[in-house]
């Protein structure tokens, strides 16, 4: 099953997004929050993100949802730091909607391409109902 990592500057945001996404995840227990710094302060840490990506991987790849600025830069750095070859990609999607869509898709046991596609499609959902 495709793993999911949620990267945010804030520990609470990452955990909250995973909490909501997990409701849609079915049997997928590889949805991992990676928020804030080791000491709990606000920020992003490329090394911790790298470890979260490894932990989320079951062999089918990892979709990563990120917030702003260094959320992106630190995640790209983490991908460069990976020692084992893992098919891990950043979804170009809003972090919460993307994580929920990715979790629902990954829970069906589909491919990383499909999971990333579902997350990115979340960008187009209108809130003008």
């Amino acid at each position, binding site marked *: 099953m495709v793993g999911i990592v949620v990267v945010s500057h804030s520990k609470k945001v990452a955990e909250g997004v995973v909490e909501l996404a997990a409701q849609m995840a079915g049997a997928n227990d590889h949805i991992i929050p990676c928020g804030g710094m080791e000491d709990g302060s606000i*920020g992003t840490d490329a090394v911790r993100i790298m470890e979260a990506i490894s932990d989320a991987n079951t062999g089918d790849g990892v979709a990563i949802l990120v917030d702003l600025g260094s959320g992106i830069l630190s995640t790209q750095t983490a991908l460069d730091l990976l020692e084992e070859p893992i098919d891990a990609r950043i979804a170009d999607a809003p972090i919460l909607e993307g994580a929920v869509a990715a979790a629902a898709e990954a829970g069906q046991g589909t491919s990383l391409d499909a999971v990333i596609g579902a997350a990115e499609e979340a960008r187009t959902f209108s809130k003008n109902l």
Partner: protein
Amino acid sequence: MASKIYQCVEQIGNAIIENKDFLTDLDREIGDADHGVNMARGFTEVLAVLPQEEADLGVVLKKVGMTLLSKVGGASGPLYGTAYMKAAVPLAGKTSLTVADGKAVFEAVIGGIQMRGKATRGEKTMLDALIPAQEAYVAAADAGADAATCLEKACEAAREGVEYTKTIAATKGRASYLGERSIGHQDPGATSATITLESIRDFVKGM
């Protein structure tokens, strides 16, 4: 005895830590008020974990880079972290530096920051100090100047670069949320990059 490179990194770290509040205040104007806090946290950890006797420039700078990208926390973490790790590549196995090595370091550092952050000159970032500094360094080096003179020229150009950042709007990083309202304020990252260069210059002059 601490190696020369340890002493140089220590001088950079101390200067960054001394300027913690100043850098944070600059970031309060156009960002999220954490640049000094971020950089000081990173360098405090660097000074705690760096082996003092290690003299291999490549080994030391790689360790500095890895520590910064894990402990800084803001955009400057992956950017400076990548910069130090890229600088380590041409210096692997060396224990001293020539003027020509300095050119290779500038190229690696700026290449690394651009690979990571996709910014160019004129976007109100650290590159607005580093790219002019590189040009001044290379011009002085090609004219046959010694290391201290090359670094002096680089620092002058970096300071001018910091002044220039006051005149432009940010299009990368947090400050880009402010757009035109970022004009009139100097860029925190360009400032910390200049403090770094000045520390290296002072270290080389004192050698």
